[in-house]
């Protein structure tokens, strides 16, 4: 059974919120809109967002790392929000595994939100129904769009190309290969929800500067001195030694 999902590369995500704003922009005017906004330019703006970006810090000072976590509906393969819905408004499509809400049947009891361990469903106070990420179902099947544009709005807009979309059950898909190659992981694996959206872990980036030195260390490089100062420890200490006597002399002056 196909299972469409997002794969998000935490190594590349810069936490710019472009995915969240473009998601809001598309979904507030498209088939599933509008998404309510209260006091949008005021002191306490509030509204429905399908996608929110969290920022976490790991490690102990000074060896800390910051990473960003975009979180939208994970379209769980064993979605706990679906069976609890008393009206059947919340459902999982068999053809692509996308979890959707039928706004005409939703009574706004909020029980589905109570049954989501990820907090990915938000109640729209204007429409009085529960709303959530639709994986831009109105884009991905729209044949009037060019094939390369038939992707969720968040994927298309990501400036760092940190978001990927596809069928995670298809071994030939880009997302399947990425999950396999980069050891993609899911949120809250112990909850038995089997989320479809995956995250690619951070990787330590190493650059061998010596290879580039012959190109960088040229006197016509405007940052020549800065490069020497940063990457040649000996040069920095020699420079300090030269400056030292002058400073000590200055301190002795009345």
């Amino acid at each position, binding site marked *: 059974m196909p299972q469409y999902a997002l794969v998000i590369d935490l190594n590349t995500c810069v*936490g710019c*919120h472009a995915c969240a704003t473009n998601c809001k922009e598309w979904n507030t005017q498209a088939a599933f809109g509008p998404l309510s906004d209260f006091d949008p330019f005021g002191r*306490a*703006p*509030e509204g*429905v*967002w399908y996608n*929110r*970006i*969290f*920022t*976490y*810090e*790991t*490690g*102990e000072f000074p060896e800390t*790392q*910051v*990473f960003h*976590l975009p*979180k939208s509906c994970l379209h769980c393969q064993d979605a*706990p929000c679906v*069976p*609890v*819905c*008393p*009206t*059947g*408004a919340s459902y999982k499509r068999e053809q692509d595994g996308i979890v959707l809400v039928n706004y005409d*049947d*939703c*009574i*706004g*009891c*909020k*029980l589905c*939100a*109570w*049954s*989501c*361990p*990820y*907090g990915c469903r*938000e*109640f729209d106070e204007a*429409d*009085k129904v*529960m709303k959530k990420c639709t994986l831009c179902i109105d884009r991905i099947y729209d044949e009037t769009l060019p094939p390369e544009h038939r992707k969720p709005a968040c994927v298309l807009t990501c400036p760092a190309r940190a978001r990927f979309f596809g069928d995670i059950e298809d071994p030939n898909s880009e997302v399947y290969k990425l999950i396999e190659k*980069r050891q993609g992981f*899911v*949120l*809250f*694996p*112990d*909850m038995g929800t089997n989320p479809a959206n995956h*995250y690619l*872990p*951070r*990787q*330590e980036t190493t650059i061998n500067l010596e290879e580039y030195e012959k190109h960088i260390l040229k006197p016509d490089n405007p940052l020549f001195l800065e490069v020497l100062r940063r990457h040649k420890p000996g040069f920095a200490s020699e420079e300090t030694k030269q400056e030292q006597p002058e400073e000590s002399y200055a301190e002795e002056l009345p």
Partner: protein
Amino acid sequence: MHPPISLIFFFLTAGTSIGLFIFVYFIEFLKLFGKGQGLPKEVVLLSGVISLILIGAGAIGASFHLGHKLRAWKAVKRFHTSWLSREAVFSGAYGLTLLIYLVIKYFDISPFFEHFFGILTWILGVLSGFSTAMIYASNKFVLEWNTGITVIYYLLMYLMLGSSAFTIISYYYNLPYTGTFLFLTFLFVLLGFGFRLAFNIRQFYIKRPTLNEALNLPHNRPVRVIDKGSTTDNFCTTEFYYEKGKQMLPTFIPLAYLFTFIIPLFLLVYIWITGTVNQYLLWVIYLSILIGSAIERWCFFVEGNHVQNLFYGLYPEEGYKLRKGFMERKETRTSLYG
């Protein structure tokens, strides 16, 4: 969790309605086997009408927490999977069969159908209470609620409300059941007290998940929330974390215990020792349980911590402290950096 006032109202009305009918019909049922004298028709009809009005008021009140009240009837569609759907079906059917029972009783149509609908209403009432309790107990993401204690305690509360209400009726009509129901009220309040204590004590021993588990990170790596993605509160932070309520909880839990258990138990013991029963004492017992139950339900919601609060850094940290030693000994090789 943010406490919905309409659901607390439903609990009080449905609790008194179903609890009262359970005892009224049980006395009638015993008469079938030659045990006891049954109840005068007037008492059955009066208590039945009270039950009917209360369940109706509760159903209307409960609909106020819905976004679309007029679509509430659609809640019957997922009976096979949803406890909320089962609750809607059972409480609706309970009200309907109760009405039929009262009509048959009023016109003395047929003893067979009277008891048939009586038994049916009794079963539907119990199933309705059980389904409501299961909505909370089956939610495995609010660990405080996810226990059998929630169900047992919930049903005991129905019995506490029902038996204390029936004691008043029994006293007014000078029935021979007042002494029995004073004892039953004492028993249910005492059992309720025990299960509520167990509910509270259990919270100290829950193995809580951590932010590391939520983010699928090694357990021995410290993680802190830097940014929650928005400058103000959103639906998830207001619905699943009631900050003002959490601050008031240390005051309200003792109040709930005082009104629901301590005052009724004290008055019941006073009645037994002095041998004096009057309507004021019985009304104070019922109202004390009623007010206490309302406060207790409010506490029940506020005490619940949804695991999604982990992502916002709003989940209790006790679990992390309890498990820290164990997790540090366990060597995890998974790395955030590949």
